[in-house]
């Protein structure tokens, strides 16, 4: 069974159709990269997986998305629980204007965990998981804004991991970072693969090549090609994919 299964997805912002009949499934504990030129629908697709697009007025969705076999757009789905299971990391690091510790503890607290010991344990584990512990262990009470951009982004990943999701969505997580921070995050993604199912949107094709097992190429709201990353980058079956990969547009 696939971890994430989407069938015949059509999505509209008002009159504009952003996704055309997209069907795409991902296996457990794999990294899937979504690539394509801006406005191709890859981020829109990603944000459907934790229902983040619900926040936008006047949108419409047809088709079904199953996560662990359950329809996440069914009437009785609890969106909060869904998002607890499907973590998300955003384009720009977006820590809360709170302390480093409070940032990671936030997700635990809003999900009803009150035991201070458990919270502390999970905060530390999560920060260790993103290899940030050595850098922040002495300033957990300091504002998260005092960290560098790369550190902030790793903190945001730690924040997402703290509530123990099984899926992690990443929306161009390194686009606002320098090369060194980027490579750190890429290493991290590689390590996290063993425990999480990761879907990553990226502009950077080398990155897709480095971190992902499978790659989906989107163009104008359509899924053009979906295959093993190796295949996509070496012998794509579609001309559009080849053009994009070889840098003829995009």
């Amino acid at each position, binding site marked *: 069974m696939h971890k994430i299964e989407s069938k015949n997805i059509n999505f509209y912002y008002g009159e504009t159709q952003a996704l055309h009949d997209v069907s795409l499934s991902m296996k457990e504990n794999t990294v899937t990269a979504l690539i394509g030129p801006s406005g191709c629908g890859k981020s829109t697709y990603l944000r459907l997986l*934790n229902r*983040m697009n619900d*926040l936008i*007025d*006047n949108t419409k969705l047809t088709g079904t998305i199953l996560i662990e076999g359950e329809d996440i757009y069914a009437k009785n789905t609890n969106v*909060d*629980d869904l*998002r*607890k299971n499907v*973590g*998300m990391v*955003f384009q*720009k690091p*977006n*820590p*809360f*204007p709170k302390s480093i510790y409070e940032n990671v503890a*936030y*997700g635990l607290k*809003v*999900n009803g965990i009150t035991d201070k010991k458990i919270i502390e344990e999970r905060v530390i584990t999560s920060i260790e998981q993103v290899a940030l512990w050595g850098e922040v262990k002495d300033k957990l009470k300091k504002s998260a804004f005092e960290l560098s951009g790369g550190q902030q982004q790793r903190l*945001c990943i730690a*924040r*997402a991991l703290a*509530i123990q999701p099984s899926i992690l969505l990443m929306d161009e997580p390194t686009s606002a970072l320098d090369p060194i921070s980027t490579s750190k995050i890429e290493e991290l993604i590689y390590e996290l693969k063993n425990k999480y199912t990761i879907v990553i949107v990226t502009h950077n094709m080398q990155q897709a090549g480095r971190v992902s097992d499978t790659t989906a190429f989107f163009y104008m709201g359509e899924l053009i090609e979906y295959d093993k990353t190796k295949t996509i980058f070496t012998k794509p079956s579609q001309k559009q994919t080849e053009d994009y990969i070889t840098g003829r547009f995009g």
Partner: protein
Amino acid sequence: MLSSAATSITVVLIVFFLFIEGAGVFTKKPIEEGFLLVVHSTNPIQKLEPSQVKDIFDQKITNWKQLGGKNEPIVLFRTEDITEFYSDEELGENFEHFPAKIDEYVSKTPGVIAFFSDKYKAKNFHGKELEINKIKIFEFLSGEEWFPTAQPIAQMGVKALIYGTLWVSFGAILLALPIGLAAAIYLSEIARKRTRNILKPLIELLAGIPSVVYGFFGLVVIVPLIQNVFGLPVGETGLAGSIVLAIMALPTIITISEDAMRTTPRAMKEASLALGASHWQTIYKVVIPYSASGITAGAILGIGRAIGETMAVLMVTGNAAIIPHTLLAPLRTIPATIAAELGEAANGGLHYQSLFALGCILFLITFCINMMVEFVTNRNSHKKH
């Protein structure tokens, strides 16, 4: 160039005129112009404080001993009392013997203190004119009685008025803040765009209605309502003022808080939701803390408006210049006092000047409030960078 300085010039002029006129209260004697306070020539007392004179005429001080003089009971004398001692014939048909008779009475009464117009002062008057100290700023601020036309000594304690102003304003904010915040949260975070586009202009319209109309509405609807609900003798109370002011402060609070909440970056809200927080948790754990300074600014501004509001309060609070102990009693605010009394005060007189001094107090309070708003908003923009 000059026009851009217009507002600055106006502020300076306002300060100048207000304070020049207002300062008169402290440089003038608090006894009505053209009137005298006189004691027997042998009385050793030279000078009295305004509050002492008041206590004497209120018969709280009844012996000169209490003021450091001789052991002699105090005898009060006002112009009209003269008829008790002399017949109409003795005083003359046109009161032409008034001065002489007053002089005579004062001379033969060692414990007397007399208050009369200086046109009744005899040529070679035998009594001794008392010096009256000027009102001190401290007395002005801490005095509990506001009765600027009282005789012989004007009572100008603004404590009751300051209390009245603050009671009504804080009562109003207490009512308006929770309601305003709830509405702001609904408009900025929960309502659909279309609902918001309908509701917001309507709420802004609420801000456009003249205060005198609110006062009128309060007078014909809220005042009788309060009177009936609480079974009071009169409905014109501090509570009525607070309710009317709360209605008037709502648009300010809603608009400013709503604007502040909408500046919360989308990324913050999404981060919270992506962690499984419910919409409501996101609002109170992320949106409200993030916009706290904007909300505070809105609340302070609301208080400022309430403190300065004149007409609506004047019409519904009953205007009793007493220190309020409950919001269910009539009270009087600073702006209402100015509006109610300036028409009757003689230009340039003590009463007139005391109202300008009230204006100074009001100006200073609102000035401080403006500065606070400025401070809060600046600190906020500082934090965001």
